[in-house]
Structure formats: C-alpha cells, structure tokens
C-alpha cells in the first residue's frame, strides 16, 4: 500500500540546512501528491532525493520498502526546462525512454513509442523536433518518455511552470487522467495553489526553508477522483483554495 516513504530525512548543503526537522511522509501507491511551498524551501531537493539524484544527509527514503539507490527507470523525472533532447525528433525522444531497456525487442519498443505518442496527443508531430513544437508539447514529450521508460513513480518539478494559463489547465487535466488510467504514483512540485489543488489527491504544504510540513490537505476527500475544468469554478474548489492560501500564508509567516 505504501509506495514511497520518507523516514526521518534531513538534508543540508554544507552549512545550509534545507531540511532540518526530520521529514516523515508516506505516499501510497497510485497516489498523486503535490509539494506546495514557497520558493527555495527545499521541494526540489526532496524530490531529487527520491529520484536518487541527491542523497539525504540523515534518514532514509524507501521505495517499496527498499532504500532508494542511484537513479533507475522506475522513477521518472520531468523537469521544468531542458525536458527533452533538441537533437531527437518527438518520436525519438519518447523512444529514448526505452533505449536502455533490454526486456523489450525493437519491435515492441516501436509499438510502445507509438502508443505513448498517441496517449499524449503527439502522434502527428512524431517527426518534428522539439524546437518546432510548443512548450506544452515539449512537456508532453517528457511525460511520454517517462511512461515509456516504465516508471511507476513520476517525479515532476514544476513541469508546467513555463506555460500559459490555458495550456497549463489542459495539461493538468491530461496528466490527472493519465495518472488514473495508468495507475501511477506521482510526486509533483509547484508553488501554484490552484494547480496543486486541481491535480492532487493530497497537497503537502511546506514552510519556508528549512522545509517542514505545515499542513496536509486531503483533496481527494473533498473533490473526488475525477477532475474537470468546470470544477475550477465550483464552490468546493473555491473554498478549498481559500483554505489552502490561508495555510500557505501562515507558512510564509512573518515574511508577509
């Protein structure tokens, strides 16, 4: 049931404590968890430690009960920028997710690449280069590549940060649908309250650095599993949004 577990994790870079109070959090399998917090508080650092791109100073992060090691393709990353390779076509970028897989034949890889291209709506742009498609499409390339790699944990660091509001909304809806369809566990970092509430099962609100959990918001029990654009104008969403903003303000503390 528990897929990902932070067990008394702390992290410091030299003299800078990023996570000082031991950090505990369990993420259930197929849960969509959002890290929401002020800029520079340590969200990215915590997420990178899950990916194996950084190691905790003390404590442990466990994936399916095992301490996480160096990066592997069970934990896929989607970055805000440089999320795809400019020298590969859209299709080749997606196929890159399977480049080092030995459990699939070339034919299987080709079939899967097409499936995921189709899933994220990029099939007809297969032969384009990332430079020739929009920012939103580039993020979808990254999502498809991560899925093709066979990741069951998606680690997404402000993946839609550079997109305009309408495109963000659309990708959020798509991401939520894919996550439910393919039953993925997602850890998603953002500092946009509405984005957090719209995609999450659970929102973890961070204090400013050193990062500490201020509160957690069980969005799923309030909004359910299905998320539609119309919900964003609903009263439930509005109330939740106000509550969350209150929590975030409190977290920011004397800065405001």
């Amino acid at each position, binding site marked *: 049931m528990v897929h990902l577990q932070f067990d008394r994790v702390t992290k410091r870079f030299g003299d800078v404590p990023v996570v000082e109070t031991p950090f505990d959090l369990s993420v259930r399998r197929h849960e969509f968890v959002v890290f929401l917090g002020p800029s520079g508080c340590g969200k990215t650092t915590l997420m990178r430690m899950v990916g194996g791109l950084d190691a905790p100073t003390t404590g442990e992060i466990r994936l399916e009960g095992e301490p996480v090691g160096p990066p592997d393709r069970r*934990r896929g990353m989607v970055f805000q*920028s440089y999320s795809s390779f400019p020298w590969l076509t859209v299709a080749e970028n997606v196929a890159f997710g399977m480049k080092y897989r030995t459990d699939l034949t070339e034919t299987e890889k080709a079939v899967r690449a097409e499936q995921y291209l189709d899933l994220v709506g990029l099939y007809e742009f297969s032969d384009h*280069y990332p*430079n020739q498609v929009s920012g939103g499409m580039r993020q979808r390339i990254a999502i498809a590549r991560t899925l093709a*790699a066979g990741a069951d944990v998606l680690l997404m660091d402000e993946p839609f940060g550079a997109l305009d509001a309408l495109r963000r909304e659309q990708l959020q809806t798509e991401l939520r649908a894919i996550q439910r369809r393919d039953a993925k566990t997602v850890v998603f970092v953002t500092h946009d309250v509405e984005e957090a509430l719209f995609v999450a099962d659970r929102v973890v609100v961070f204090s400013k650095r050193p990062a500490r959990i201020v509160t957690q918001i069980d969005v799923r029990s309030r909004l359910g599993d299905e998320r539609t654009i119309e919900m964003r104008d609903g009263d439930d969403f509005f109330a939740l949004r106000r509550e969350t903003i209150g929590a975030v303000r409190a977290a920011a503390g004397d800065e405001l």
Partner: protein
Amino acid sequence: MSLVAEAEGGTSDVAGSSVQTTAPSARRPTARRGPFRLRAPLPRGWDAAVAVGASLAILAVWEIVARLGLTTPLFFPAPSTILSTMARMISDQNLLWHAWVSTLRVWGAFLLAAVMAIPIGVAMSGYRVVGAALEPAVDFIRYLPVPALVPLAIIWFGVGEETKIFLLWLGTFFQLVLLVADDMRRVPNEYFEIAYTVGANERQALKDVAFRAMLPSLVDNLRISLGWCWTYLIIAEIVAADSGLGFVIWAARRYMKTPEVMAGVVLIGVIGLATDQLLRLLHRRAFRYLRGA
C-alpha cells in the same frame, strides 16, 4: 477528458486580441526602416548578394587605384596583376602542389589536435580532478607565443615535417582543449539526469547525451581552430621548409616579388574562405534541429 492535441496558438491569439490593439501611430516614431534597423533581418538571398557586391566593389577600387598609378606596383600591385601572377605560378612554380602540401600540414596538425583535445577537454570538465590538474598547465602554455617556441621545436624535432606539425598543433591544441571543456560544461545537468532516470550509466550518458548535446558548438569550435592552424602555418613554413605556401611567400619576398607574395597570401585566403563556408554549410545541414519552426 480526451487527450487531444491542443489548438496550437489559437487559444493565445484569442486571449491576446483584446489587448493587442496598438494603433499604427503608437509605433516608435523614430524607428528607421530598411536594412539599417538594429538587428533587422535581411531579405532572402540578400546576404550573398551584399557579400559578393561589397567584395567586388573593394576589388574594383583597388584595381582603379593601382591602374591610375597612385601606388607603386612594387608595393601594391593591382588585383589583375596578382591574378595573372598566380596563373603563371600555377604553371611554372607548382603553386597548387605547394598549396596541397600546406593543406595537408594544416589538416594533419588540426586532426591531431582535435583527436587529443576532445577526450581531454571532455574529461577536464566531466571530472573535476582532471580539470584541476590540467587547467594551470593548459592555461600557461596557451599564452606562450608560438613563434617564441620555434627554436625549441627545431632543437627537439630538427627541421622536418614534425617541427611544422608540432608548431601548428601547439597553436591549436591548448586553445581547443579549453573550448571543448567549455562546450561540455554547458551541457545542462538535466540532460544527464534524464539519461540516468531512463537507465543509462555514466558512459552511456556521456556518449549518447552529453557528446550529442555539445556537438554543434564543438563543430563550430573545430572550424574556428582550423583557421588558427593556417595562421601558424606561415610561421612554421617560413622557419624551416622547402615546400608549402609559406615557403613560396617567403622565397618571393627575398627577391621583392610583391605580386608573388600577394598571390600566395590571396591563395591562403581563398582556401580559408572556401573551407570555412563549406564547414558552415555542413553545420547547417547536420544541425537543422537548431532552427525552430
């Protein structure tokens, strides 16, 4: 909830249309039109036309000045004289063979420098220890003037081919190593991390991602250092050679045959220009993806 492609551009146009109603009169009134607006693009085909036109104009002025007798032919012969001298040198003095010998030297030294500089430069920025170890030495040597090392080169290698290759290599390798290291340093960390998270090991990340990411700027830097090789060629061939364009130029100087000197110089320029343009063309072909839609 279907995963259909978004209507690209359409949405943002609608959103923007109510805002972007800038009247023509609101344009910067002093804005100049035409090619002399800052950073204005040239219409298609103009680039080549302007380049050829300007070059011909310079040659024409030069020719006229020389013909009017405003210069002494001994110092400043007309383009036509240089051209006819060049033609004569091709038939009488094996000029093209000398050019070929020089080209081989340049490419030999250049390839040697490149083959050594690429792995070393990549290692220098890929592994901090290697960088820390080599940076002082590389930086020191790269500021040494190549001509000052000619005597040393002759002591070490005599006056054979090795000396020439060594001098050219010396002039390019140390510069190139640092350029390669810089190219590698500019590869975003995210690229490595993407590779690792789809299961690549370090060697695969280096080969399949980092090297590929730095390739366009690497090729550019190689092109530029090939140009430096031609600069040092003359030094090498003046000092110790009985062949090559440097030798031809230096021999002609001894008898004050200015047109021959100029013919040699011009030939180097032509070879350089042609190589550079060819490499630029190949660069554009190979790295089409750098240009957006």
